[in-house]
């Protein structure tokens, strides 16, 4: 971390408890600061984050619904959605400009790059012309 590039505050939603600690190694990289790992969206500490990483596998809801729930809890935050397979459910989330999708077959380097990329995609609130 340096003054020009402060670390992005990252939190992770990982339902597979046995793999929670794995994220400490995966996220340990340049400009990334792992703040929290939660088992569910409800367990995410309410705090400001630059990006939320969610393991989208094993949930009953579609990925888009998970992202909506994250934002309902934390406000408009970029999301990095991680999954084992490139399902239509996962890929459909790519239409959201503040979502990056990445597969679990990615190396740690690629995963960190995806998280940084998501963190850069701050949500832009567009005001319709003439609304001001």
């Amino acid at each position, binding site marked *: 971390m340096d003054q020009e590039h402060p670390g992005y505050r990252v939190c992770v939603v990982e339902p*597979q408890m*046995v793999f929670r600690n794995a994220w400490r190694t995966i996220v340990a990289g340049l400009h990334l600061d792992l703040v929290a790992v939660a088992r569910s969206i409800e367990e995410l500490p309410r705090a400001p984050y630059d990006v939320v990483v969610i393991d989208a596998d094993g949930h009953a809801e579609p990925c888009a619904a998970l992202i909506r729930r994250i934002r309902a809890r934390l406000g408009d935050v970029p999301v990095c959605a991680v999954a084992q397979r490139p399902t239509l459910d996962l890929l459909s989330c790519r239409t959201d400009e503040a979502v990056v999708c990445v597969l*679990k077959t990615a190396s740690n380097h690629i995963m960190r790059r995806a998280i940084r990329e998501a963190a850069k995609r701050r949500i832009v609130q567009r005001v319709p012309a003439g609304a001001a």
Partner: protein
Amino acid sequence: MASVYIVEPQSLFEPELERLVSLAGARVAGSAAQLDLDEIIAAAPDAVLLDLDFTAYDVLDVLDVLQAEAPAIRPVVLTSERGRGRLDRCRAYGAAAVVSKDATDLEMVHDLRVVLDGGSVWDQRVEAA
């Protein structure tokens, strides 16, 4: 030193399982994202750690093959799936252990140690409806 073969399709998490095997005092006999039963049998580990969630494989089929062709290899099933009777079915097909992914890393290390010492682990969280 006892050895464990790891099958973890979520390759992102393979290093974590390797770490846990090492903490259990065993060596990693092999590690793969794709299930290859021939390779597992050829490696002849003391145990095989199988995470077949999010794959097309039926764990009972895999256990059946291992029981028939490599009964000395003790299968440890790691799963996030739940359902009544699941433990009994895995036990009937030769699993040495069924561990829920709700386990902490320390529980996982403990369970691996139990299996490598000849015991069995039946994680009741897998039975929850």
